[in-house]
């Protein structure tokens, strides 16, 4: 066998940001338009602040937003969008209503007109709302049979306690009680342009796209209600919470650790520490529990950001019989990253990954729309990428070790396991104090 040498990398060219324009249009909506003409399409993201809204109503509103306007039925809306290759959908998280869509570039004006009708002249017709309500209830019921959802629900309750983020999915009976008039009232109160941001990315002329947005959405007006959510409470480590799922062939292992928001000067270093620990395939934790031990298929970690606080989430589905050993290795790897500085090579590898995958995200219309919308949601613009990539490029071992010791220490983790409690309680109890959760 001849030995061949791994080719060197050619260093990245300087970061190039796409051409963009921004304007606050009549009515108060902020519009950001970005030119990326790679395919003849346009991506749309509209973020409307929705913090502190009543969960069952807000969830149903997001599901029923496209059920009708004063002049269009749900079928009209869908058909008119399709006619320009378009589609729109809405989703909710504890901070915002997010409307996402795309169309052929030549269909942008029409997509904006239809969006404007939905925003300014909503119908919430009785029959259609009833259909969406029943569907939402069915979806929630299916979600409640999925281990990932159950584990997340238990973890959110455990870490957020009485904070509004503790419950992010309504109960079926709460949804059942919501009436169309309540949706109309919530829409009138909260679906307002002030504080909202519209992002358009694609094969567009940014100035003209903003003109089109102004023409369509200039009549969408109204003040935003204050939806500021109080800061999340500090994590309170305690006994491992064990939630029973009898007969489960896998355990869902979840941990929450403290984290920094994106604007923090130490954020890049924390992201690198996260990567070295478990945030990508070539991390210590994944190489350990998957590639060495074979305990799991897709373990992952990541920093989750909400407006009122951030947390580092650790997730793995592990075979029931290795639940204890999986916790052992996880705590070991957290202890190692929190106690000892990372190696030069592994830090460099994580750094390149963080920088490279950002370039990959920036290479598509959808990726740019996601990045621009995400930053706009915290008052930043795409040019923040220059600052962030510089911070990633310059973070030192000492900085990474410092944030790791503060944020990745296993003593700071809140741990939840969903699994067959009778089988896993013993092995878990050998490692830590276990408390069984109420059903």
């Amino acid at each position, binding site marked *: 066998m001849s030995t061949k040498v791994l080719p060197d990398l050619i260093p990245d060219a300087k970061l190039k940001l796409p051409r963009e324009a921004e304007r606050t249009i009549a009515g108060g909506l902020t519009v950001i338009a970005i030119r990326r003409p790679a*395919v003849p399409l346009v991506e749309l993201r509209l973020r409307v602040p929705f913090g502190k809204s009543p969960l069952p109503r807000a969830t149903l509103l997001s599901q029923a937003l496209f059920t009708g306007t004063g002049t269009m039925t749900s079928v009209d809306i869908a058909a008119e969008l399709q006619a320009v290759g378009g589609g729109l959908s809405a989703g909710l998280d504890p901070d915002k209503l997010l409307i996402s869509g795309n169309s052929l570039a030549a269909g942008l004006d029409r997509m904006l007109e239809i969006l404007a009708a939905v925003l300014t002249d909503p119908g919430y017709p009785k029959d259609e709302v009833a259909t969406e309500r029943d569907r939402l209830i069915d979806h929630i019921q299916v979600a409640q049979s999925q281990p990932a959802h159950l584990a997340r629900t238990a973890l959110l309750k455990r870490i957020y306690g009485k904070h509004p983020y503790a419950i992010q999915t309504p109960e079926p009976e709460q949804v059942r009680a919501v009436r169309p008039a309540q949706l109309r009232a919530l829409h009138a109160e909260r679906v307002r342009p002030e504080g909202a941001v519209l992002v358009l990315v694609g094969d567009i002329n940014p100035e003209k796209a903003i003109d089109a947005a102004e023409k369509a959405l200039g009549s969408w007006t109204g003040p935003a209600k204050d939806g500021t959510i109080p800061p999340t409470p500090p994590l309170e480590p305690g006994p491992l919470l064990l939630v029973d799922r009898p007969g489960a062939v896998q355990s869902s292992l979840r941990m929450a650790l403290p984290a920094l928001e994106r604007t923090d000067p130490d954020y890049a270093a924390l992201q690198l520490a996260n990567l070295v620990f478990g945030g990508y395939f070539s991390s210590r934790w994944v190489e350990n529990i998957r590639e060495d031990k074979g305990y799991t298929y897709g373990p992952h970690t990541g920093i989750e950001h909400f407006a009122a606080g951030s947390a580092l989430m650790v997730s793995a589905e592990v075979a029931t019989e290795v639940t204890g050993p999986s916790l052992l290795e996880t705590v070991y790897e957290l202890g190692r990253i929190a106690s000892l500085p990372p190696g030069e090579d592994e830090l460099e590898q994580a750094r390149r990954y963080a920088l490279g995958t950002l370039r990959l995200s920036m290479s598509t219309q959808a990726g740019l729309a996601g990045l621009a919308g995400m930053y706009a949601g915290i008052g930043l613009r795409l040019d923040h990428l220059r600052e962030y990539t510089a911070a990633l490029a310059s973070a030192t071992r000492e900085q990474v070790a410092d944030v790791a010791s503060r944020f990745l220490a296993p003593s700071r983790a809140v741990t939840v396991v969903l699994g067959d409690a009778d089988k896993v309680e013993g092995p878990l109890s050998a490692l830590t104090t276990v408390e069984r959760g109420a059903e």
Partner: protein
Amino acid sequence: MARRIKIPATKYPVERFTLDNGLRVVLTPDRSAPVVGVAVVYDVGIRSEPEGRTGFAHLFEHLMFQGSENLEKLAHFRHVQGAGGTFNGSTHLDFTDYYEALPSGALERALFLEADRMRGPRLTEENLLNQIDVVKEEIRVNVLNRPYGGFPWLRLPPVMFSTFANSHDGYGSFGDLDSATVEDAQNFFDRYYACGNATLAVAGDFDVATATEMIKRHFGDVPARPAPERPDFDEPDLDSERRDTYTDRLAPLPGVASAWRVPDPIGAFPDYLPYVVLAEVLTDGDASRLVERLVQRDRTVTSIGGYIGFMGDEFQVRNPTALLLQAHMPPGGDAEKVLRTVDEELDRLAVDGLRPGELERTQARIATHLLRDTDPVLGRALPMAVLELQRGRPEMLNELPKLVGEVTEAQIVAAAATLRPERRATVEVIPGATA
């Protein structure tokens, strides 16, 4: 109805050549973003697994990441991610793909990594046992520990097809996975992972001459091995309806899925394409036939989807394949009633034809989906590698929106008329969980 919107096209350039060892290469440069996508596709998938070795094609895909001639275990992952890239692989019915997306300065590294494992993976007992464990956890996550696991992609083929090749479980039984040996893996590699049985596609930010030279340098010395003869997996269409029912102990609500055979996606492409459009006419969005009727009007289903190919890869699947409809129902839902309504709507379509604008708007939306899929570098490298492998026509990726736009109402009506109950295979999910 407003005048019809023009369906636009992409003009990604396509360069093709074949190395002396038989490896077919596709280059599609686009310098608008500093990233590249590299895809290698082998012409072997789930259908080629030997009996007693269900799940082997997928298990073998995992082994291709476990080290190769010049690379230790873990090295592949580290070299890709340490170059700022992402990687993966996937096993389909008819092919297995391996791919990376990276900053453009890492192109040569990705080519080196793919060439190294094309010469041969390091197949060891230890890595095999480790990856059997990992694959079992993958199956537990995706099938055994969740509601509706494998529905319908693992559940419908045994109802619809008779031969082992077409009907067996592509994830594999734990028994078969446990009995896999290193020798099996070596034989599988020797037989199917020949460079004459593979294509390489590179998309994105590179210079064609430079990339061509790199490809020759890295892949040129992969030993020439011819492609094995590919069996014809065809089998007769159904002449009477087939049904199966199973209880999913984790599912809270009932579900139903049906499939009908469609024309050969490659050999009879003009006959096949209308079915791709028909699936969307039936299920794409609130204005589609079956969503409007079953979800909005009758409320007999909570969601319904339609697509071609058990893995949803309509332009990357060979004959035999099917058009699928799958629906989830509310509590107490009646699959019989849903199927009867589907038949009624298909009849209506076959007799009354389409409404004004219905075809055009569906085609416009399909065009958006197709164009959007090509925006990421891998959205070009992967399908072009498969189109080269299966059809020798990677440039077809540019043509698909237009071809979809040329499908006529008469073709849709004719396609709908073939979806008869007696040609249908159906599987029903009985909810076993207390909701």
